[in-house]
């Protein structure tokens, strides 16, 4: 069905069985810098799904670049645990490469308690810490670090190594005029700036010989004024191919500078395959080196088309195979409709790993928990009648898992369609993709044989009429608005959901009270501003979007600023009289006024809906009644789905 996607690809001495690649991504599953059992299970699950190549998360090549949770690659202690990972992956015919990394200035020295090393004494625009400009002998030390780590990776059984010269890390810092202001042989001209990368590649090649593949990852556009762009990177790869030819080039983008950071792991606001043009541009400049494309490649049809268009030789479907590790197998077997497609929410993968937590996935609760949940679903010891109330993400996941385990499941949903809060969330332009979660879950629920009954308001009598042994309530939560002092006949603040559902009109100037910290507030602010309204976001938090994944926050901030949304942090609204909205500084307690406010919307707290739960407990104490999702505790869809999954495994 996908002849190009499933054709082999030669990468130096290695032949990949197919062209689906999982590019290197942090999992934060390590223990004391060493690969863990969770690593083994995580990567084996992806290999079992039929990937052609796994590029394992980066190993650090030098003690000056070993932040918390990272794998070390400069110490022989790393070899035995890594060997277990490579053996597990090889069992399924998948190849595995190791990525070699020095982060340079793009980290915090507090992690290593050592000064940061960088080409020049310029701070990373995100981390803001001044680094130590490297001396020639320190440069030599790093080169040796790469070579030593590469040698250790050979011992650990890897089929190749990938030198990380992308994402603004040390090698890119040397390469880019944005971060390299040296005036020695490593600075100035392109040849000089490229020197370290060439030396590293040559030294790594010398260390590993022809036994394994040596690739390089580059940023084809830094998305930084004064930084590297596509045409200069085309020149770079031509030079690399001439003097230190890598076996492949993985084409990524970005550094940690402002809006560029958002492109590293493009979220659903970016189109699918958004950076394939960079891979195509690099491929055009090369004579023979295979090129990998990356960036929201989530569907096998899309991947096949990229290969057919000669825009890349292999496709990195990284988040797609985090979300559904069985994607390659399903595509090969001609079952693309069964794939649980990644929507690019970035909440469990990018969002958690950038805050130091281990990897998860909104749609796939088993991610990062493979040692516990990775062996598939065990059949239930006894078939039970299960009633699920609520067709939101938690209800759908609970119904699906319960049905797959062999239970007889009935699902009641009061609306005419499934999806719950996802339906409203998807109404905002740019967030339509979140509806994909509902589409995936709905399809799986129906395939699992769940009896779905729409437009049914579940009552105690109705539920009991089904004679269930287990009832799972996933009925959500009601939005709460902050109490404002208003005239008796004045308008009150309304939840953002009311406006999204068309229940309320808003005026030309809108104050949006935000204590949600997520898209619930910011996406609505964005939509209001796009309709050319004056929007003020007022939040008691230190900044807007505190709970967004960092890369998503950057792009959200970019859009809010571009649209002229005004932001007032560290304030809560206290009264709205006439058109004056009085706000209080949460630190000083001083009041000030935002004038001419015609409407007030709130993305505030939510209150769990517990009425049905209490009625059921009272009416039939013998039935097991469980709460999942927002009616258990209002959080995000990822936590709701994980709650539901956990519960359904225990039934």
């Amino acid at each position, binding site marked *: 069905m996908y002849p190009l996607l499933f054709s082999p690809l030669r990468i130096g001495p290695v032949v990949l069985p197919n062209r689906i690649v999982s590019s290197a991504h942090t999992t934060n599953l390590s223990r004391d810098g060493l690969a863990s059992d969770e690593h083994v299970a995580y990567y084996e699950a992806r290999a079992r799904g039929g990937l052609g190549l796994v590029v394992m998360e980066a190993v650090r090549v030098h003690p000056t670049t070993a932040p918390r949770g990272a794998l070390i690659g400069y110490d022989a202690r790393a070899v035995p645990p890594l060997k277990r990972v490579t053996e597990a992956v090889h069992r399924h015919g998948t190849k595995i490469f190791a990525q070699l990394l020095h982060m340079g200035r793009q980290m915090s020295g507090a992690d290593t308690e050592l000064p940061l090393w960088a080409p020049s004494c310029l701070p990373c625009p995100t981390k803001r810490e001044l680094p130590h400009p490297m001396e020639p002998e320190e440069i030599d030390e790093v080169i040796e670090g790469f070579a030593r780590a590469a040698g250790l990776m050979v011992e650990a059984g890897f089929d190749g190594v990938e030198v990380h010269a992308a994402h603004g890390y040390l090698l890119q810092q040397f390469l880019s005029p944005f971060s390299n202001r040296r005036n020695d042989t490593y600075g100035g001209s392109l040849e000089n700036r490229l020197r370290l990368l060439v030396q590293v590649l040559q030294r790594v090649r010398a260390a590993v010989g022809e036994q394994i593949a040596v690739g390089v990852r580059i940023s084809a*556009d830094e998305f930084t004024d004064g930084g590297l762009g*596509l045409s200069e990177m085309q020149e770079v790869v031509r030079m690399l191919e001439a003097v230190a030819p890598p076996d492949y080039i993985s084409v990524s983008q970005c550094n940690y500078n402002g809006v560029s950071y958002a*492109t590293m792991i493009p979220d659903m606001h970016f189109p699918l395959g*958004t950076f394939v*043009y960079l891979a*195509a541009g690099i491929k*055009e400049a090369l004579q*023979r080196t295979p090129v990998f494309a990356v960036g929201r490649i989530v569907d096998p049809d899309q991947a096949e088309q990229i290969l057919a*268009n*000669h825009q890349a030789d292999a496709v990195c479907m990284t988040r797609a195979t985090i979300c559904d590790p069985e994607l390659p197998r399903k595509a090969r077997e001609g079952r693309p409709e069964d794939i649980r497609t990644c929507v690019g929410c970035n909440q469990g993968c990018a969002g958690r790993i950038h805050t130091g937590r281990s990897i998860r996935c909104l749609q796939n609760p088993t991610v990062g928990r493979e040692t516990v949940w990775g062996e598939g679903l065990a059949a239930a010891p006894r078939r039970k009648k299960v009633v699920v109330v609520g067709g939101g993400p938690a209800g759908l996941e609970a119904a699906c898992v319960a049905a797959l385990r062999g239970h007889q499941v009935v699902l009641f949903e009061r609306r005419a369609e499934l999806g719950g809060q996802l339906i409203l969330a998807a109404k905002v332009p740019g967030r339509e993709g979140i509806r994909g979660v509902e589409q995936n879950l709905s399809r799986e629920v129906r395939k699992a044989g769940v009896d779905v009954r729409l437009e049914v308001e579940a009552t105690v009598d109705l539920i009991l009429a089904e004679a269930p042994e287990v009832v799972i309530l996933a009925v959500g939560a009601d939005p709460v608005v902050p109490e404002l002092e208003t005239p008796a006949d004045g308008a009150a603040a309304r939840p953002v959901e009311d406006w999204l559902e068309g229940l309320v009109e808003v005026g030309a100037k809108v104050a949006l009270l935000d204590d949600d910290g997520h898209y619930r507030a910011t996406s609505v602010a964005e939509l209001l501003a796009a309709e050319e309204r004056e929007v003020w976001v007022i939040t008691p938090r230190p900044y807007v979007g505190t709970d967004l994944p960092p890369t998503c926050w950057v792009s959200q901030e970019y859009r809010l600023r571009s649209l002229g949304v005004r932001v007032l942090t560290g304030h809560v609204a206290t009264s709205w009289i006439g058109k004056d909205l009085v706000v209080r500084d949460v630190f000083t307690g001083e009041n000030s006024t935002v004038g001419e406010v015609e409407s007030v919307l709130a993305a505030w707290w939510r209150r769990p809906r517990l009425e049905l739960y209490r009625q059921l407990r009272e009416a039939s104490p013998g039935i097991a009644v469980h709460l999942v999702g927002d009616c258990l505790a209002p959080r995000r869809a990822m936590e709701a789905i994980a709650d539901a999954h956990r519960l359904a495994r225990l039934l």
Partner: protein
Amino acid sequence: MLAVVLLKKAVFLSESALRPQPVQGLLATRRPFIGAHDLAALHHALSLREQAAVSRVAAITAGGSEADVILCQAYALGADEVFRVPWEGDAGLTDASPVGRVLAGVLAGLPAGVVFCGHLSPDSGRGLVPYVVAQSLGWPLVTRAVKVQMTPDLPHLRIHRDVGRGNREVVECPLPAVVTAVRYPSGWRYPKCARLLAFRRRNVPTLSPPSSPGMPSEKRWLADMEMTRARPRPKKIFTPDENLSAAERMKMIVSGGLKAKKGKVVDGSGADAASKVYEVLVECGYAPK
């Protein structure tokens, strides 16, 4: 070592004896020019000089004094020496074989290490002369060269050949040799005005072949080095202008290069869809009221 480029005084296609006659008269007065393949041959010779692989580049053509204009162009483009081999006939059009033998005789008397020719001329399109030259001299002939490099340790040329459909073959060729070029490589060379003027002040020397050219003493063989398959060009895809700022490039990427369109959004239930869509069509003037 001397690199020699054999240049043909190309004329327009209609002047060819192989072409229809009616338009020949119309174009007969046009200036002669160096064909694209001959230009590529000259470029390869000049590139070898720039790599210090050869010391001098000589351009040679056959014909009467009207062929000097070709040598003038070659001189202006960078040839160190230019020579004309007197020839009364229709050099290369119908006399390819005798011209080739005469040129071979001339070359035998020169310290030439490599001889470059265009693979085909734009008029006759036969490309026989280099074959005759190579056969007469007993030198190896490498055709369709697109890239020529001197190997560092041996007096060999490493030549990348275009073998069709974008595929490339790399061969190593012992010297002396005859090489035909198929197209002009990247990077144009421009004639220099000073050299154009200098050419006017000099007489074009002529070379005559010796009465009995020597025969080749030994055979030399090409060595196949590698064969590379054509690398298809990526299909064009939207690429933001690099001259835009980073923020503007981001905007282009997120929008797919399109400005935001403010369209009318019709909201409501599925049951109302038809009537609402009809209302929009009426409003836009696409349907009658």
